[in-house]
């Protein structure tokens, strides 16, 4: 178990502060936030690449706050992979083992084992510049995992992968984590990637943790308005606009809007066709309401439609 307590790091007018964060074993945790929110700083603090101004980090109850990165039992995959350009794939992966002066046969055995898991066993004699981006990433993963670390840290691992391959690599990362059973901390700014991968999401904004929870909970029942907006398309408006009681803001997802009948009437201002569905922007009572409808629904811009909002899906946020 990884535990962060009262962790603080400031630089250039920015402060990251984590009051308390507990990361359970064998889970896939995603740190999610907009750029500049402090998520990479948090990862680097856990890695030991940055030292906190205050607070403590515990791995399995052991205080590692003062330990340098190589004594923390963490594996790191850098955003640009950071392979050693002058070493072969084998020697890249073997670096942490050779450094511990393990016997030669042991090094070879463990490198081959991890290379097989990552399906790069036939690349071992090549140099990094001879590999594709995806292969380089597997080498970086192998180098991080060969030490059998307690925690694997991934810094935006999908940002340098072709859009085409991203889904495939995403699935691979998750199944790798399931197979090896390590704790993974994955940093990203892509909410779809975060929800697809995470057992647990940690949403960070402006140096603070907004909310922690499983993706389904954060998507449909968030406590924080920021999280609600950040995790997908959303409608946020004062409750009075829909004729509801209370002075606070209400929020609901476009898919919770039912078009084709109901209490409200509005004019379709814009139609976006997105393949599996359409998004309508309905002008109503001086606000714009986004609604998700079937792609087959025939509706033109300027048409007047009736719609309703599923009552039990409406969230209330203090304004």
């Amino acid at each position, binding site marked *: 178990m990884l535990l962060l307590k009262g962790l603080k790091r400031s630089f250039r007018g920015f402060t990251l502060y984590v009051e308390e964060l507990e990361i359970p074993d064998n889970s896939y945790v995603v740190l999610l936030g907009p750029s500049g929110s402090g998520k990479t700083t948090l990862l680097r603090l856990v890695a030991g690449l940055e030292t906190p101004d205050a607070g403590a980090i515990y791995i399995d109850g052991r205080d590692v706050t003062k330990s*340098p990165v190589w004594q923390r039992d963490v594996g790191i995959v*850098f955003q640009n992979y950071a392979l*050693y350009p*002058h070493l072969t794939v084998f020697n890249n992966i073997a670096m942490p083992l050779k450094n511990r002066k393990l016997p030669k046969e042991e090094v070879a055995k463990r490198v081959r084992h991890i290379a097989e898991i990552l399906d790069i066993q036939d690349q071992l004699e090549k140099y990094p510049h001879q590999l594709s981006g995806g292969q380089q990433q597997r080498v970086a993963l192998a*180098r991080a995992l060969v030490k059998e670390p307690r925690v694997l840290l991934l810094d935006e691992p999908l940002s340098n992968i072709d859009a085409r391959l991203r889904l495939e690599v995403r699935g691979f990362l998750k199944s790798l984590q399931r197979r090896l059973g390590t704790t993974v901390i994955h940093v990203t700014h892509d909410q779809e990637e975060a929800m697809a991968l995470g057992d647990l999401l940690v949403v960070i904004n402006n140096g603070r943790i907004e909310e922690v929870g499983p993706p389904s909970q954060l998507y449909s029942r968030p406590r924080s308005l920021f999280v609600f907006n950040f995790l997908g398309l959303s409608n946020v408006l004062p409750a009075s606009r829909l004729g509801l009681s209370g002075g606070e803001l209400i929020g609901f997802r476009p898919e919770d809007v039912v078009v084709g009948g109901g209490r409200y009437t509005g004019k379709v201002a814009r139609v976006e066709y997105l393949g599996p569905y359409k998004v309508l922007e309905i002008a109503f009572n001086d606000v714009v309401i986004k609604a998700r409808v079937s792609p087959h629904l025939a509706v033109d811009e300027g048409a007047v439609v009736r719609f309703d909002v599923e009552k039990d899906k409406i969230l209330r946020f203090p304004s």
Partner: protein
Amino acid sequence: MRDKHILFLALPALLYLFSFTLYPIASNFVLSFYERTYEGALRWVGPGNYVWLFSRDPYGGLILWNTLLYSVTTPAISIALALPIAVALKRLGGGWLVLIMLPAFIPAVTAAMAWYLMLNPLYGLGYYLMQAGLIKANPLSTIWTVVLIDVWRALPTAVLITYSGLRSIPRSVEEAAMADGVIGIRKFFAVDLPLITPHILAAFVLTALTGFFTFDPIYIGTAQVGPRLLDNLAYYSFEKFASGEFGYAATLIVVMTAVGTLLSLAYMKALSARAVLRLPGVYRLPNREAPKALHVAVLAAALAFVFIPLAWLVSISVKPPSEIIHVPPTLFPSKLSLDNYRLALTDGLPFFLMSLYVAVINTVVTVLVAASAAYQMRVHNLGGWPLTAYILYLMTTPSLLYIVPLYLVVRGLGVYNTLWALVLTYPIMTLPYAIWILYNYYSGFNRQVEEAAMADGMTRSKAFFKVVLPLSRNGLSVAGLYAFMFSWGILIFPLAFSSTPYDLANPLSFSGAQTFSIYISMLMSPVTMSYGEVSAAGVVSIIPPLIYLLAARNNLEKVWGAR
């Protein structure tokens, strides 16, 4: 998108360089098959000059041996010293770099003079070194003094290149090494050293060129100890040129051109090298940071090496005359005296003015001409790699190669011993260097600025002068720094193309073109014994480039690429 403006803008530089370099290189080759007779006519001797050099010349063996020794020891020692200094700089902060760079920016003749004054066995620190038994032989008469001076002048280049190599290692690779538990001394040998191999090779070749073409220290040293002891090919060929043996001088220069070309090719190869230095047994090295005190000690020793000769120079320059020629020498002046400066600034005034004129004119001309060529080469790929390679080649060849043919040209044009002879010839050495600096500078330049200006209705030439040039100030100031430093301090061109001091009685004739470097070298003779005046002149000669260096310091960092 090609248009004739691109060629037009680059034309001044290209025309100048091709006519002033290709012709001399070819001309040397032709001249090397002739000898000049007693009457001054040239007579065909076939390969006779070459046969003479390699088999008959009584000094041939000594000169080839000295040349080899200078060209191997200078880079070897410089790199060996530069690596620990670069590591210390990285640990303690790059701000110290500018101080270590100083020897590269002061005139070579001043550097040589300062060392010979300091090592003088009667009136310099050499006295104490011999008393303490640290050195046995007279330091003035050993070729190792020349090596020492070369190392002093080459060290900044070696440190700069290896240091920028260390800084070019991506931070994430360094962090990956940390995560793998490879740190400190072991990390340096297992990760850093292999990754900066191309930088080390480049630094090796550049400093080897310094050693191979070393001239000023031998010129000064020979005045102290007599001829032929310290000579290398460069100095010997100059002697032959000065005594009118143009054919034999050209032969020696052809041999040097051949070796210099090989070194240049090696340099270009090094710039694109994929080679890595891999040491066996790195995992047996200690896996910890070297203590900070060690880095501090290395940096302190480097700064002492750089500044002790300069401090000694300043100390002599303010001593009263009676105290300068005094055995044993005093370490500090008993009282301050400015007599030496008064002398240096009155006797030296014509030389000083001539140096200043040519340095300012040549810096401005070089920078403008170089910028308009470099921009087209980089941004519009004018001339492709052959032109770039040729510029790089010229940058690594020394000015000495051109003196014999250009002497004949300068004579023929009737500008010998005037300011115009210097203005005409100086760009040969400053232009390629400036083009190379700006070529690299423009690689990071946003070319859309030019396109936007053209979309606003300017021609390409107008866009260049109105928009690109004003935005290139950082690059121009660094290219200008090197141009100024070369033109201010060089010895060999004014030695070859002038014979009298600037005629102050008739200042607008700009005739009499001896420069401040010549003034220093003339004073540095054991006959005149004017050590006080020469040291004051030396200090004065440091001041203009130092002012420029300090003014351009921040730009240097930008252009060198501070992280």
